[in-house]
């Protein structure tokens, strides 16, 4: 076929018209998968902080403290809050650093190391958050127990009771709600970061296969 052979004639020459890809660009392509996962970890963690901040703005805790006459607690609460934000911002900075590192790495060995570091950072982050949630729940209970007028009345009632029935009931209830609450958060983090970590791990395994 004449037309096809004409095309063939120019086919080889067409090679000069391609913009050549450099070795550095090829390295970047090979590592792009990991870097996009780490980028998502960064984005999600920032969104998550924004979400919590929004929630805490909507529910003003100061009013609650005033209502239960615990104004002296506001300062402690603020310190606790600032500390928490400082830690979380540090984590976000670490995520950002991991992202920059992974997207600029050119050696495969270093990339594998970076993936492991990122996974570790994310795990620490999740554990920190879960610990903080458990801690907040307990502090919340303690405050309610010592300050809430309703609890004071209940305590008086318990003092007149001979058996520990009410006390046991309260502790049982608290333990159950704590378990459920922390469990829900645990599930939330598993889903949110677990999927990304799994993908990262798959990528790691792929790299390891090549690492003979």
């Amino acid at each position: 076929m004449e037309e096809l052979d004409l095309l063939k004639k120019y086919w080889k020459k067409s090679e000069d018209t391609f913009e050549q890809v450099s070795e550095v660009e090829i390295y970047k392509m090979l590592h792009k998968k990991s870097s996009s996962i780490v980028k998502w970890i960064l984005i999600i963690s920032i969104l998550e902080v924004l979400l919590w901040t929004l929630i805490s703005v909507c529910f003003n805790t100061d009013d609650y403290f005033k209502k239960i006459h615990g104004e002296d607690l506001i300062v402690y609460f603020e310190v606790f809050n600032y500390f928490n934000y400082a830690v979380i911002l540090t984590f976000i900075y670490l995520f950002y650093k991991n992202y920059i590192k992974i997207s600029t790495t050119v050696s495969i060995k270093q990339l594998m190391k970076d993936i492991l570091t990122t996974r570790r950072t994310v795990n620490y982050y999740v554990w920190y958050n879960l610990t903080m949630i458990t801690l907040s729940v307990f502090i919340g209970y303690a405050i309610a127990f010592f300050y809430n007028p309703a609890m004071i009345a209940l305590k008086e009632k318990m003092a007149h009771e001979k058996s520990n029935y009410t006390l046991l009931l309260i502790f049982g209830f608290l333990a159950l709600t704590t378990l459920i609450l922390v469990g829900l958060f645990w599930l939330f983090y598993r889903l949110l970061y677990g999927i990304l970590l799994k993908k990262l791990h798959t990528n790691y395994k792929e790299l390891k296969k090549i690492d003979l």
Partner: protein
Amino acid sequence: MNEDLEKSFVKQLRENQNIIHKICRLYTSGDDAHKDLFQEITIQLWKAFPKFRGDSKFSTWAYRVALNTAITLYRKSTKSIQTTDYDKHQFFISQEEYNFEEEERIKLMYQAVYQLNDIEKALVFMYLEDKDYTEIAETLGISEVNARVKMNRIKGKLKKILNP
């Protein structure tokens, strides 16, 4: 060891990248699509690289993996209408040999090839690469006879598209 492997892969890919560029030109239109397919093929080649034992040439092996990637990817998007960028082939012929009549014919031919399906494009690609039927058959995983028959049919189809 692994770093050496990666180094050798990157070096060979850079040297043979025109194979991928040419496949991208046949299967995509537009710069972004070209780059996307290039990247996808690169990743697939890298994944398959540990299985490449070096008993064939890098280029021969790359043809197979790259075409397979293009075909599978192309299949996913067959429903979207393929629009062709006419200006893309403007620089197909270098300035010294500029020949208006030939350029027009090549452009039309390109348009015709674009209308072929994914497998047919792969055959045309191998044909344009000046491969013999043994290699075409081997690369595409079909018999030599089948490759010849298919190629003849494609020629007929192209003729029909050019002279309806």
